[in-house]
């Protein structure tokens, strides 16, 4: 039974997809509504776009932006370092280290960021001096908190400790996600626990750590706006300083929003590239 050689018209039949007329009409109507809303936003004098445009690249706004970025980067680096240490402690077999790490995460993740911020800022008012005195040896060092506990430093300390609480859980989840077989293979080759953690487990854990960390960085960027409460010269504070004088509140808030959105977009794009780098062993 061989196939007939002549062409059968049935062979050329193709399937025509369903025509979703309702969907097309709905999309068209939505587009019109969106354009109308956009038009009203753009032309509404309340937003004061021309004023916003004027302040967009204002020196104090840009300097505030710089402070915000500096805060975010510094805090994130410290948070990752502290968080990794806490995560390793949390995974350790020693009960003390485990308990300490759990307590750390509980406290610093539990209290609201703003409260931690205000607390550390006021620490210098309560604790006048930090010194280390040993019996028979005398005072090793002594420093006045007012000297170094500036608003900026308080903000960094407070938010780093707070953020480290989240990072510890992220790193711990990442480490746990690396299969047991990897540590067994490393162990069977004679690698000790420290070597295994740093050479085998953590590099592979990065694939699971990077996406939530990117998330946290973006959140942190916005959380830093809280520092305006302790008079740190960040982006929001700079904008507030201006509209306290000129009462152009909404346009200046639009400027702040724009810059936050801009930086978040840049961060999201960088995260994409970082994920690609750490996932390169996944590519075929």
């Amino acid at each position, binding site marked *: 039974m061989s196939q007939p050689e002549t062409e059968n018209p049935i062979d050329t039949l193709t399937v025509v997809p369903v025509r979703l007329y309702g969907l097309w009409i709905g999309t068209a109507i939505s587009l019109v509504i969106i354009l109308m809303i956009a038009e009203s936003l753009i032309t509404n004098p309340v937003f004061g776009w021309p004023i916003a445009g004027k302040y967009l690249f204002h020196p104090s706004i840009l300097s505030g932006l710089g402070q915000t970025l500096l805060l975010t980067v510094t805090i994130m680096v410290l948070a990752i370092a502290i968080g990794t240490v806490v995560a390793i402690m949390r995974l350790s077999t020693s009960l003390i280290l485990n308990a300490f790490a759990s307590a750390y995460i509980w406290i610093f993740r539990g209290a609201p960021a703003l409260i931690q911020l205000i607390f550390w800022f006021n620490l210098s008012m309560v604790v006048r001096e930090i010194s280390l005195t040993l019996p028979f040896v005398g005072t090793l060092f002594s420093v006045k908190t007012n000297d170094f506990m500036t608003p900026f430093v308080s903000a960094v300390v407070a938010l780093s400790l707070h953020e480290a609480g989240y990072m510890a859980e992220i790193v711990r989840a990442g480490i746990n996600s690396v299969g047991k077989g*990897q540590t067994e293979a490393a162990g*069977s*080759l*004679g*690698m000790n626990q420290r*070597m295994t953690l740093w*050479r085998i487990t953590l590099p*592979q854990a990065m694939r699971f750590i990077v996406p939530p960390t990117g998330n946290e960085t973006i959140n942190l960027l916005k959380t830093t706006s809280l520092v305006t409460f302790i008079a740190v010269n960040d982006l929001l504070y700079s904008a507030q300083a201006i509209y306290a004088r000129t009462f152009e509140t909404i346009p200046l808030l639009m400027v702040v929003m724009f810059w936050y959105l801009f930086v978040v977009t840049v961060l999201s794009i960088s995260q994409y590239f970082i994920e690609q780098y750490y996932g390169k*062993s996944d590519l*075929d």
Partner: protein
Amino acid sequence: MTSKTAHYEEFGVPEDSIVFARGVRKSFGDLEVLKGVNLNVPKGTVACIIGPSGSGKSTFLRCINHLEKVSGGILLVDGEFIGYDLRNGKLYEVRDSLMCKRRANIGMVFQSFNLFSHMTALENLIEAPIMVKGVPAKEAKDQAYTLLKRVGLADKTDAYPRQLSGGQQQRVAIARALAMNPKVLLFDEPTSALDPELVGEVLQVMRDLAESGMTMVVVTHEMGFAREVADELIFMDQGVVAERGEPEEMIVSPKSPRTQEFLACVR
């Protein structure tokens, strides 16, 4: 050297023994998995361990390189304890760093390959020699190239595990274990996770290794391989060695009824 002779004399360990077990017991909480395993693997021989699941064969294998801690009994590799020391008639666990040093002389090949997925084949092979033994990078790389050639994967040095087939990954895993110049190679069901087509290439590498004089302990279901390559066949059942002997003899005419039962199913 003194401690080595002490163990030999004390327990009656044959001089050429690479793996010696006597009365090895292992419990996971209340569950006793190994109930007194006695075994001796002389240097340069291949021992194949077969048995039903739950018999403890994988657990015993993992006790040899201390991936599982022994609950009782004597387990020596080349005359030495791996995870513990015998002092004044008691067994004391040793520090992690010392245990790892001793473990470096034992190679293991896993059922699920366990290649380091963030490293290429070459990097997988040079990692342990450089980090654990302090071998200079150039020397480690040269040895790695040689080993990969030996297992037939000279062209895959820069491939990531994800880009390799199961059989290729397992061969890289064997090469990785060989890179540490182990005294004995342990195989934990090395071909159980492979497509039937790929099993052959791994068994060939194992056959070559056996021929070159490597001491091997293999937990496997591959009866053909055991029959051909093993110097001793060990049948484990319910945590003890139920029967042992020459593979050909044992497979054809097993002595114990349990062994007969098991072999009937496997064939």
